[in-house]
């Protein structure tokens, strides 16, 4: 095959041969975010049976990056092959059911592109590998120079050809068994990456929440800052790129769920505990800047501050829906666990999702997962929607369109968080960046149909619960503002205090009667009064109109115009104060 040179290695350096397609992907930026690029290294370490991955970003300078794992390393032969037309050329994936030898982890699978993901954030890096099986070690420096558009266009024209996309300098070093694994170091980080990371300022979650600029002391502190900062908790897009990087890596990595802080209600379910146990059983620890990553989910997560410890999971019961995928239909049974909230009338729900079909697009598809919904928006926004994991690795981020759900459900979209764990299938659904899906793949379409069909039955339930919740809230707010007004009225006079407001509907109220009566300890409002009644018709403004009427009638009882005005405006300012 013909080679097209985009770059000429210096003396002493060997060329890296890439397929034109891969060359283009890398040059144009394969990953949407730095987390997308770095997670490849974590996946490689997982597959290599590493117990630890340690990443250092050099916060807050971000001038040096390192990623070290203690897996079984890369062999000299594998590396040489990668450098010589091996990247992305075979598109090899792991076979279904293939497990790692030591910790029996489901192999995430290699496209032979993982290491090159680093090219997105730096243009030179060093790899040191001690390979336990062959007892050989090597050190290599890899360079990826900047590419011009002309070079990219030329390379693209050579379909099926290879290009010289970089250079490497290789040397074998003495093998040291205690150093088994792959270590990557670079201080040639791209300026844009550094700048974006360095821009902390007020967007740094720790600064926003605690007023401090120093590094996070623990992952728990990080979670506390992200979930409880007034500003950042709305959405991570308001947080610094560093915070987003941490969140992205913690979300995507095959690590257990976060168990600190207030806890997570989904972990109260048996099926989730089994998943947690399985994840812990992989014995895989990922640390970034000395923070031990965990899946950064805290559910429930809302503005009311309701925490997991206030939630009680009721026994599960079956919930059925009709899955419609084009003309294909199937009855699916999932489990619903209602979630009761202590001393509140809130009701949340946790669903255990399962699906298997032996023939979807000619291949079996097996998925499991969960769906959690609460009343009230989930914060931050980044945990709203659907997240799909393949072999424990998150693909992309949460899709808050619920895979392009075709109906308008307003704020209810923001109350749902679900994860799917693909156990079998999806081999061809994944795009080369391993961060997104081919939307026409049959397996993807089937899961999409699952979500849409399921949500068509669940959204109405959420809607009902939300209506009732809003009603409860309105009544609560009404009670509070009524109490406030009563307090204000009682302060205007030395007479016996008013304790409650009662709304009556007598049949024959006339205009000459006062629509508001002040009786012993009680203010009575005649809602059918011919003068007041019409103003009370609009449900949204009813409570305020009632209060203004009370204020007006109270003011009328004063002896002079001045006093009437004084009382009325004073009560008005109470009604409209915060």
């Amino acid at each position, binding site marked *: 095959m013909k080679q097209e040179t985009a770059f000429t290695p210096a003396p002493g350096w060997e060329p890296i041969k890439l397929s034109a397609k891969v060359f283009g992907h890398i040059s144009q930026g394969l990953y949407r975010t730095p987390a997308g690029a770095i997670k490849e290294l974590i996946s490689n370490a997982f597959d290599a049976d590493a117990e630890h991955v340690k990443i250092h970003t050099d916060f807050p300078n971000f001038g*040096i990056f390192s990623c070290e794992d*203690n897996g079984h390393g890369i062999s000299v032969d594998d590396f040489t092959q990668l450098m010589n037309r091996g990247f992305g050329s075979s598109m090899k994936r792991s076979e279904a059911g293939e497990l790692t030898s030591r910790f029996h982890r489901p192999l995430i699978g290699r496209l032979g592109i993982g290491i090159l993901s680093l090219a997105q954030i730096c243009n030179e890096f060093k790899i040191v590998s001690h390979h336990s099986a062959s007892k050989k070690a090597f050190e290599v420096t890899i360079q990826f120079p*900047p590419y011009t558009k002309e070079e990219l266009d030329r390379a693209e024209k050579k379909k099926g050809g290879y290009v010289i996309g970089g250079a490497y300098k290789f040397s074998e070093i003495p093998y*040291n068994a205690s*150093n088994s694994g792959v270590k990557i*170091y670079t*201080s040639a980080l791209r300026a844009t990456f550094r700048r974006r990371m360095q821009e902390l300022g007020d967007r740094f979650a720790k600064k926003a929440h605690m007023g401090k600029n120093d590094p996070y002391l623990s992952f728990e502190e990080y979670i506390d800052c992200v979930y409880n900062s007034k500003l950042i908790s709305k959405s991570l897009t308001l947080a610094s790129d560093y915070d987003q990087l941490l969140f992205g890596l913690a979300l995507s990595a095959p690590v257990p769920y976060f168990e600190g802080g207030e806890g997570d209600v989904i972990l109260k379910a048996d099926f989730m505990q089994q998943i947690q146990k399985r994840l812990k059983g992989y014995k895989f620890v990922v640390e970034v*800047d000395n923070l031990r990553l965990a899946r950064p989910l805290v559910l429930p997560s809302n503005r009311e501050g309701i925490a997991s410890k206030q939630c009680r999971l009721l026994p599960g019961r079956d919930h059925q829906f009709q899955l419609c995928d084009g003309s294909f239909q199937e009855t699916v049974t999932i489990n619903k666990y209602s979630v009761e909230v202590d001393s509140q009338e809130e009701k949340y729900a946790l669903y255990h999702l399962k699906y298997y079909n032996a023939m979807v697009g000619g291949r079996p598809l097996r998925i499991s997962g969960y769906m959690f919904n609460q009343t009230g928006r989930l914060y931050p926004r980044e945990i709203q929607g659907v997240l799909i994991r393949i072999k424990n690795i998150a693909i992309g981020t949460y899709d808050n369109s619920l895979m392009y759900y075709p109906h308008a459900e307003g704020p209810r979209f923001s109350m749902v968080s679900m994860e799917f764990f693909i156990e079998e299938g999806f081999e061809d659904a994944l795009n080369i960046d391993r961060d997104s899906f081919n939307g026409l793949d049959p397996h993807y379409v089937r899961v999409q149909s699952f979500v849409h069909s399921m949500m068509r039955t669940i959204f109405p339930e959420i809607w009902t619960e939300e209506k009732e919740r809003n009603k409860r809230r309105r009544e609560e707010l009404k009670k509070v503002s009524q109490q406030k007004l009563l307090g204000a009225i009682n302060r205007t006079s030395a007479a016996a205090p008013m304790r409650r407001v009662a709304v009556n509907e007598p049949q024959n109220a006339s205009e000459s009667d006062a629509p508001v009566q002040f009786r012993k300890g009680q203010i009575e409002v005649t809602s059918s009064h011919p003068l007041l009644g019409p103003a009370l018709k609009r449900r949204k403004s009813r409570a305020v109109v009632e209060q203004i009427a009370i204020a007006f009638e109270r003011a009328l009882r004063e002896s002079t115009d001045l006093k009437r005005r004084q009382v009325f405006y004073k009560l008005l300012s109470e009604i409209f104060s915060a």
Partner: protein
Amino acid sequence: MHSTARFSRWWNDPIKHYKRRHYWIPEAKKLQRELDGKRGFRYFTLCSREMIDVFSLIKEGIVSYDTALHKINHVKFCEIDETIFPEIKDLVGYEDSGFLGRLEDIVLFQGDSYTDKFTSRGEINTEIERLGEAIPKEKKHRLELKSQHLSLQQAFPFDFVNYDFCDIYYPNPPDTMRINSAVDRMVEWQSRLGIEEGREFFLKRFLLAVTCRFDDNVSKDAYGRLATVVAANQREYPQYRIALERDPVRKDLKKWQKQDPFDLFLSAWPKELIRIMEKRQWRMEIRGFVFYPRVSDLGKHYTIVSLLCDCIRQNSVGTHEGQSLWLLDRNNRDKLKPLSRSSAEGRPLYAHLQAVVTKRNAQAQYRSRPLLPKI
């Protein structure tokens, strides 16, 4: 989790630990008591991955260790090896605790008309980004070095600066005074305003330990420099001149250099530091002046020299004649000898070192880093 480098050859050297235990630690303890709990003890080191100095100070309660978070407070380090750098950072526990590179390069960064335009790390990075991926390597290196220089400067001051670089103090020309200049710059930075948890402070006192190496590779220029120091002392201090004239070897500088170059070095070299302190308005008192022999992997003999200086803030500094005479007195230098593990002095020393190693290994275990072997 393992780093690529092996442990350094002298990490468990009992003589080195003797120096720490009997010279550094007592003085550091005194200084720490003076802080009176108002702030943490701040330590700067060139420790390698073994970090015995750091854990010695932790064991003695001088450097603060957070047992809940497993982090070492107020310690910063510089390390030249990128494969060791993340390991030390792991053991310290703070991501912003380290500086990668050669300390002298970072400290002595000299601006030029181009780099002087950028006064902050943000401005430097904006410039690097502006120039794009095709930025000349040298330009990028200069800009990044400046960025590191600014960061390191902002980390000062420290209560204890441990400049344990174990190399020749006067390198071969053209950079014979490079190490000295680096010390000068760091002492200058010691006058900076410090901020800790929002509270400002200035140092009134600090410790400086400088450990270097002496062998027969010391250059002609270096001896020329030492001769200059001696000559200056002779001019300034009559008693000093008399003391030299009374000694049959020392009275002739060339003879002194030929017959006892080590003595010349020990007599004159510390004056470099005294001069720096004087210039920067510190009074320097020597709390420890030790040396001990070593043999390199290639069988070459050399000597490690270590000076512990107590530096006290003073607006005006008087004569140094007393110190110059003190340096001439061979009795004021301690030659550290090998200690047997079973001797009366050796047993507690080895036990102390083992305790330090145990503490260090506990941290390494927690951080999944290589453990040091038993002493």
